[in-house]
């Protein structure tokens, strides 16, 4: 009798079809409105930064994987996502070499040196941004008031958080909350387009790409702590609405803090992580030298993720014993 040449493998024998590529493409789609708004506001400069950033991220990823003799995985889109997210929190005027250095730091040091996708303890895009921000010679490129001085966008060209830092909350009366919400404010190429970031972020939540707990509790944490500050001294501290609608809070809640490799998995871990990111943002905005604290808040909370993954429900202790 002729034996059949059958394939044998452990279960399951079907797959849902979910792919890493799918996740990356959903994030790119979600960022598309902010990209379009950014390009329409800052013109070809924004396009230059976005394209060069994505290209740098993918080229560095491919090169380092070749150097490390690993399979080249730029087709999964994760490097493109890193490049795009990094571009969206940079000002439109930033020169090419800064973009390249930031992507090198993010992709090579922040991601591939730790083992690649999923093994990165920190969000690579934030590592790239932080390297530029803490390098004294380059920090000026990230000062939005200096960087965007030559642009005429039709709205008030003052970085709201810099105004808050320098002059206190009493100087904020000429910022209209509706304008801030609609993205008519100075800031990163895409990060300032608050409403479009929100729409993209909600799309990711609906598609199940990111967990809803992180953005919700990030925004709640920001609102709660800024509310407490504001209640103690309304002249020195801005209200919760202002904090949520300025700087990187919205992009931070939906895109910067939700990178799966550097965020927790269990529900209570996610809650603590989200609240921590939001609260740390306000602490940094209130007490540090930085006008916006989102990136450093996220990086700091990224470091605590292994601890947060230890927070479990009591019922998580399994009761069912199957001894088959």
């Amino acid at each position, binding site marked *: 009798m002729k034996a059949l040449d059958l*394939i044998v493998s452990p279960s399951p024998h079907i797959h849902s079809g979910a792919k890493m590529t799918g996740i990356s493409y959903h994030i790119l789609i979600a960022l598309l409105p902010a990209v379009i708004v950014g390009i329409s506001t800052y013109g070809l400069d924004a396009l230059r930064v976005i394209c060069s950033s994505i290209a740098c991220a993918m080229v560095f990823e491919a090169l380092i994987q070749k150097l490390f003799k690993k399979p080249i995985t730029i087709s999964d889109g994760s490097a493109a996502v890193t490049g795009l997210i990094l571009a969206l929190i940079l000002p439109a005027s930033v020169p090419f070499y800064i973009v390249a250095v930031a992507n090198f730091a993010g992709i090579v040091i922040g991601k591939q040196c730790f083992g690649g996708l999923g093994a990165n303890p920190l969000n690579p895009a934030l590592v790239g941004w932080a390297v530029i921000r803490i390098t004294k010679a380059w920090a000026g490129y990230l000062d939005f008031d200096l960087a965007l001085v030559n642009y005429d966008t039709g709205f008030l060209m003052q970085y709201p958080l810099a105004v808050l830092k320098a002059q206190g909350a009493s100087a904020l009366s000429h910022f209209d909350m509706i304008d801030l919400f609609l993205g008519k404010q100075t800031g990163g190429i895409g990060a300032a387009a608050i409403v479009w970031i929100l729409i993209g972020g909600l799309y990711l939540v609906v598609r199940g790409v990111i967990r809803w707990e992180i953005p919700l509790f990030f925004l709640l944490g920001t609102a709660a702590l800024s509310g407490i500050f504001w209640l103690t001294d309304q002249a020195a501290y801005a209200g919760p609405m202002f904090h949520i609608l300025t700087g990187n809070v919205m992009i931070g809640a939906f895109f910067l803090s939700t990178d799966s490799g550097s965020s927790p998995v269990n529900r209570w871990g996610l809650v603590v992580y989200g609240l921590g990111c939001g609260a740390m943002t306000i602490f940094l905005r209130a007490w540090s030298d930085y006008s916006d604290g989102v990136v450093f808040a996220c990086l700091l909370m990224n470091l605590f993720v292994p601890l947060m993954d230890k927070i479990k429900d009591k019922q998580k202790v399994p009761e069912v014993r199957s001894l088959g």
Partner: protein
Amino acid sequence: MMSIRSFFGILPARLPYADSNSPPESVPLPDTLTLLYSETAPSCVALRVGDEVKTGQNLAPLGAHPLVSPATGLVVEISDFKGPDGRSYTSVSIKPNSRETFDPSLAAIDDFSKADPMELRAAIKRAGFSALSAVSPDPKAWPKVDALIISALDQDPHGLANQQAFRDHADQVGEAIGLLSRAAEASQCVLAVPENLAGIAGKIPPGSHKLVLVPPVYPNGYKEVLARKYGEGILLQGKDGGVVGNTLVISVEEAVGMLSCLRSGRPITEKTVTFTNGTGTPKNYKIRIGTPIRALLKTTGIIPQPKGKVIVNGIMGGYACFSDEQPLGSDAMSVSVQSPSDVTLFQDTACTNCGKCNTVCPVDLEVNLLGRFSEYNLFDKCRTLGAENCIECGLCAYVCPARRPLVHLIVHAKQVIEAQGPEDENAEQGIPCETCENSCKPLRLFEPAPKEERAENGESR
């Protein structure tokens, strides 16, 4: 094909069960029936090649679990067999006769309500049902059953066999519940019915049982999942002889089968299995127990292609067969054939910590960690995370965007943990020091000495 989608990312993704009425078609009696017996000592099978057996004859009178001949015929082969699960079996092949003679030692029981529970358990085992002997082979050494769950759900997303038994024999379910409640001495009984069969369930006269409607979503049909939802842990005999859990779960098909066997004084000889070939609608077939897959495939007209798969007991939790000569036993639920283009490949990629596996796990395991610990041979950590509790439903690997072979990794960890033995024997022993001479176990000052067997297990991967 099925889809799995999440609703707002808040509810876990859902994989629905098949729902259709498919009266079983009979598969002709094959040339050879093969029975696999899992008892480790082959001497339990008191037979020799050339022996005549009658239908219902007890082939393993010394064994703890039942082995009952499903046909009258001649024993043509007895051999050792390594099953697809890696366990050893004794295989008994019977060439059936066309004329059937029933073993006279089985007797019909007329009135269950007055029968002794001990007698009922023995009769159920004698008729060839292993569902109860899995708890304890000795009917007298039975633990207390707090909850008895009769399930009308199939385990496999494509499965229809158990649903069909409920559709066809709903009128007998009430009596079967009475029989099993008495046999198991259960204090309460739950009838678990998928929501799509609520209409049929409504026609069952209310009795001592409680009716629950279960959403027809995978993996709600798993006995472990039902026991966790509606009972308090599944009742099974532990490896150390003790008993865990206090809920007994029995499928409607088995329950109704037990009822008719005890009534008629005949053994269980047939089983309904669901057949699917990838994209086609699932269909039920009635087979004689011990029928090789080949005979079933001949009736369906589907020939598996080279580099394809033949899967027994479900595309999610079942096992792929080496050959189509594999027999279908009384525990067979479904057979699926996959063409080479449908064969799913998993990859040795890194976990990205997205957490999808954790949200779908029906027993709340931390699958992301288990997969990684198993990958790096950290089996003690797998034990701490409760790897043994995995029911191998396959949902984690099904949803994993990195296509990691999560079930493979967890099953490997489970096997290593099983080979290492119970936790107490394996407890970390400190290195004795000169000062106190005793080991410093309570303080755990020293790392435990590496065990040779662990190293071996690590290398075997």
